[in-house]
């Protein structure tokens, strides 16, 4: 291996071979890399353009971090040096780009940046092309540095677009002037917002020229000519959409794309559909896009290429609004029946979102979702049917209709399991609304559901069992029949724990409880609080950073009155502090005598929601744990069967840093793990907390760490609350604890002599500055422990100050961003009475009070 670099100097061919070898085969072998880097360094310094070129190619091809470290400083210099040859400049620009992409931190900005911008004016178009690529990428991270490139790019583009085909000689490609360069310049312009009026005028003219040229008859029959021409056109349209500021340009672009929608060439149809999706979100062109709806629907039905059909679906989704929602949803549903399996789930999600968003009449919404389940039941994910249930519960007017429709749908000989789930739930809640009709009497409803029982999975059967107990409550006449079912051996001794438990408990409940209690326990489900649709979140996750779904958000913000506003939400707080969730929580309002916090629907709450649900009440024992942490900084803050939270913190003057360790005590992953720090309105201005988000997945047995940077802005009394939400198995966990960031953490001890102490003590003699507390000792009154606590509290323990040696005296300074507050304290123990008297004197009353309260708890 070693001889290779030696060979690199011998001859051109060996050099070529050597470099080829390196670029194709070498990955990262440090010995070799050092030698190679040396050889490259020599070549770069050689001033021979061929050698320099080869060296740069090699660096660009390998682009490893070691090379970046070695050469990232050199290459900018080569790039902007006046005497560098053009071909070398090109290579240098792209080489630098490659290094920047792999190791952005090793390429610092410098005064070379302004000279690179000037390369845009270079005579040699190859140099300009390379420089434009480089600037486009750099400008995304450092827009300020490269601002000046905008006007240069615009004028360059103008010159190219208006040039005659003979001007650019070899850079003309099938009668299209410098298409690659034009596309790159247009891309560069998309890194910046619309420029100021002087440049903008020029740019608009230029874009209009491009649009005009598209209408002219082609100069050549070759497909290369039209491809190049259209490439520039599509990029120009992208720029127009990005700027989103010139209505006439947008409309023209839309018309141009509309023409392409029916073009002979499939490629163009595909691209037109894609570009129109982005156009659909702009308010100026939205209406123009809608005019093409028939063409798009036609494409959906007749296109042979599945990828084109997919684009058509995307476009329909993007252009959907209240006027055409019903039509579009109908079309999408009929497409769904024959759609490719790989894309069905996405279409299902989209239809669900559209149906919900644009439903004026919710009966239509219910019909649509039931149709969805009928056509593509397998691809209807949980979020979708959770959502339909939420909506039915929240809207009184559609409950009867939903019950009736679901009942009818269930009568089909083969219905999808999701339909049984939805049907089971809705009949359980609202079956009484159709019980009057003899065709849907309670017994018939029950028999209908029970006929599907044995065909269903465990989860569905569990749901059906809950429905049965609700039936017992709603229709006492069915009690005997249902109890018979529950009593059956297959239920009571069922292998699955959940089913067995439910059967046993429901049977007991129905036997033991009086009708009143039963009615209270199984009361109708309260309306769900409005939250961001989890379906939208799921779609975004599926599609990644796809523009279509993001535009949805933009559209939603603009058309604010879409759905008639959120429902009133008196829902109970969501909290399941233990994994064995309250079974009756599925349908229950809290029974009157019960103590534990109310819990609503473990399974059926919008558990995939992104926005934080109501914060759980503080976990039991939170206060004691909190008190333990006043005088110490490390330890376990909270622990239950699933989660352990540990703390480690350090403080200096008015700043602090706290490491929060979350330990997963189980063997199952936690999903959507979200810790949030909540500061009340009073606390917010006084305490600044900064943290980075934590990985939402915590593996079983793993521990994740979160760093919180703390700054004490001003003195504060309350404590922030740490709220943790996550999914464990099928349940939703919500834990809150008080975070022990207290004022005394910012306490810095100050040593002082006895005289100073008493002098200051006398100075702080006004009644507001002193706070005294006499309290009973909670812990044994041990001197050493007391001393340790005072030191742990943050104060300096001053010896030989107080005439009574049994008393404890301390002094320190509370550091905040704004001020520093001196504090003096005196603790007098009374051993016989087992009591203490604590005196705090500081220059600020609130501080005295808070410190006194904090410290009193410690003894």
């Amino acid at each position, binding site marked *: 291996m070693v001889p*290779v670099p030696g060979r690199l100097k011998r*001859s*051109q*061919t060996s050099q*070529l*071979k050597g470099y*080829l*070898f390196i670029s*194709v085969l070498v990955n990262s072998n440090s010995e070799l890399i050092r030698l190679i880097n040396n050889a490259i360094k020599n070549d770069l310094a050689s001033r021979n353009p*061929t050698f320099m*070129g080869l060296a740069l*190619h090699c660096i*660009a*091809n390998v*682009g*490893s971090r070691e090379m970046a470290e070695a050469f990232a400083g050199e290459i900018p210099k080569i790039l902007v040096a006046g005497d560098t040859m053009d*071909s070398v400049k*090109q*290579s240098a620009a*792209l*080489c630098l*780009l*490659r290094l920047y*992409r*792999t190791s952005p931190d090793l390429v610092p900005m410098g005064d070379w940046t302004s000279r690179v911008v000037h390369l845009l004016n270079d005579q040699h*178009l*190859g140099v300009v*092309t*390379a420089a434009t*690529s480089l600037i486009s990428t750099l400008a995304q991270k450092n827009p300020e540095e490269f601002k000046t490139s905008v006007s240069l790019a615009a004028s360059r583009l103008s010159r190219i677009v208006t040039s005659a085909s003979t001007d650019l000689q*070899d*850079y003309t*490609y099938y009668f299209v002037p*410098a*298409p*690659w*360069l034009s*596309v*790159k310049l247009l*891309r560069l312009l998309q890194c910046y917002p619309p420029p100021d009026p002087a440049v903008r005028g020029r740019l608009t003219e230029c874009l209009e020229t491009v649009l005009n040229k598209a209408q002219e008859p082609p100069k050549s029959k070759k497909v*290369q000519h039209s*491809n*190049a021409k*259209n*490439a520039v056109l*599509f*990029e120009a349209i*992208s720029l127009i959409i990005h700027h989103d500021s010139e209505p006439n340009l947008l409309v023209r672009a839309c018309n141009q794309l509309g023409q392409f929608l029916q073009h002979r060439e*499939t*490629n163009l*149809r*595909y*691209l037109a559909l894609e570009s129109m999706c982005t156009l659909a979100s702009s308010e100026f062109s939205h209406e123009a896009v809608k005019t093409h709806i028939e063409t798009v629907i036609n494409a959906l039905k007749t296109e*042979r*290429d599945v*990828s*084109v059909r*997919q684009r058509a679906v995307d476009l329909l989704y993007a252009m959907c609004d209240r006027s055409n929602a019903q039509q579009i949803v109908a079309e999408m549903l009929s497409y769904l029946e024959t759609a490719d399996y790989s894309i069905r789930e996405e279409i299902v999600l989209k239809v669900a979102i559209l149906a919900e968003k644009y439903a004026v009449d919710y009966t239509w919404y219910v019909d649509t979702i039931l149709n969805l389940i009928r056509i593509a039941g397998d691809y209807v994910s949980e979020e979708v049917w959770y959502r339909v249930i939420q909506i039915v519960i929240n809207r009184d007017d559609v409950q009867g209709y939903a019950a009736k429709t679901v009942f009818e749908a269930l009568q089909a000989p083969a219905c999808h399991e999701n339909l049984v789930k939805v049907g089971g739930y809705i009949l359980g809640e609202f079956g009484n609304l159709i019980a009057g009709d003899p065709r849907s009497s309670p017994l018939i409803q029950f028999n209908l559901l029970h006929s599907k029982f044995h065909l269903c999975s465990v989860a569905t059967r569990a749901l059906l069992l809950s429905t049965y107990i609700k039936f017992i409550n709603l229709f006492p006449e069915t009690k005997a029949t249902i109890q018979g079912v529950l009593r059956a051996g297959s239920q009571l001794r069922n292998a699955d724990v959940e089913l067995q438990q439910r059967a046993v408990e429901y049977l007991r409940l129905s036997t033991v409880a009086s009708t009143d209690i039963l009615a209270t326990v199984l009361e109708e489900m309260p309306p769900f609080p409005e939250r961001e649709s989890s379906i939208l979140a799921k779609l975004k996750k599926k599609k*990644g*950073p796809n523009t279509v779904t993001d535009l949805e958000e933009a559209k939603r913000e603009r058309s604010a009155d879409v759905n008639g506003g959120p429902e009133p939400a008196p829902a109970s707080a969501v909290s399941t502090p233990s994994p064995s969730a309250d079974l009756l929580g599925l349908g229950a309002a809290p029974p009157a005598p019960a103590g534990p916090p109310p819990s609503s629907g473990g399974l059926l709450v919008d558990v995939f929601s992104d926005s934080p649900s109501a914060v759980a009440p503080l976990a039991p024992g939170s206060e004691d744990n909190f008190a333990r942490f006043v005088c110490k900084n490390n330890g376990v803050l909270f622990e239950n069967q699933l989660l352990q939270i540990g703390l480690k913190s350090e403080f200096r003057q008015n700043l602090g840093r706290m490491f929060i360790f979350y330990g997963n005590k189980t063997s199952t992953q936690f999903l959507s793990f979200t810790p949030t720090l909540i500061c009340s309105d009073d606390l917010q201005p006084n305490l600044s907390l900064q943290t980075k988000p934590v990985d939402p997945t915590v593996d079983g047995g793993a521990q994740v760490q979160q760093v919180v940077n703390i700054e004490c802005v001003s003195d504060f009394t309350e404590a922030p609350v740490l709220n943790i939400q996550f999914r464990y198995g099928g349940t939703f966990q919500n834990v809150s604890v008080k975070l022990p960031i207290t004022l005394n953490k910012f306490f810095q001890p100050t040593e002082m002599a006895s005289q100073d102490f008493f002098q200051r003590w006398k100075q702080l003699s006004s009644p507001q500055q002193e706070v005294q507390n006499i309290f009973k000792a909670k812990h044994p009154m041990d001197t050493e422990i007391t001393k340790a606590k005072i030191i742990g509290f943050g104060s300096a323990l001053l010896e030989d100050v107080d005439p009574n040696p049994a008393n404890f005296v301390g002094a320190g300074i509370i550091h905040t961003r704004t001020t520093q507050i001196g504090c003096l304290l005196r603790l007098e123990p009374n051993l016989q009475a087992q009591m203490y008297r604590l005196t705090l004197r500081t220059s600020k009353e609130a501080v005295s009070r808070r410190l006194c309260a904090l410290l009193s708890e410690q003894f």
Partner: protein
Amino acid sequence: MQFMLLFSRQGKLRLQKWYVPLSDKEKKKITRELVQTVLARKPKMCSFLEWRDLKIVYKRYASLYFCCAIEDQDNELITLEIIHRYVELLDKYFGSVCELDIIFNFEKAYFILDEFLLGGEVQETSKKNVLKAIEQADLLQEKTETMYHSRSFIGCKKAY
């Protein structure tokens, strides 16, 4: 551009150029999947498809498929023309290029590609300039060959 692959109708890989750092295993996996996907496409279908989170632009020239993977915001049509320009360069250099030329002179194919694209971006769009650079390199090589009176080892993979 993230990578470019050339493969025959039987799925044999003739040239691969990667512009992003990936492990060998990943490269093989990607190649396998992509080749399958592209070969499954019918002739009348459009030249673009979405694959994972990338856009794939491909075109078939005689028995070879030229396949490029670009990022979401890149321009597809211009990539199609990049492919075409590359084919033109090969054509000019080899004189009516065919698959065999690429098989036996793969290193020349790589050199030409490197002169044309660097780091995934178009470097030089003038056909003349690219071919001139290659010509110069060739001249130097011939000079050394005549000096050493021996055929150089280009084309022999086991040279090292």
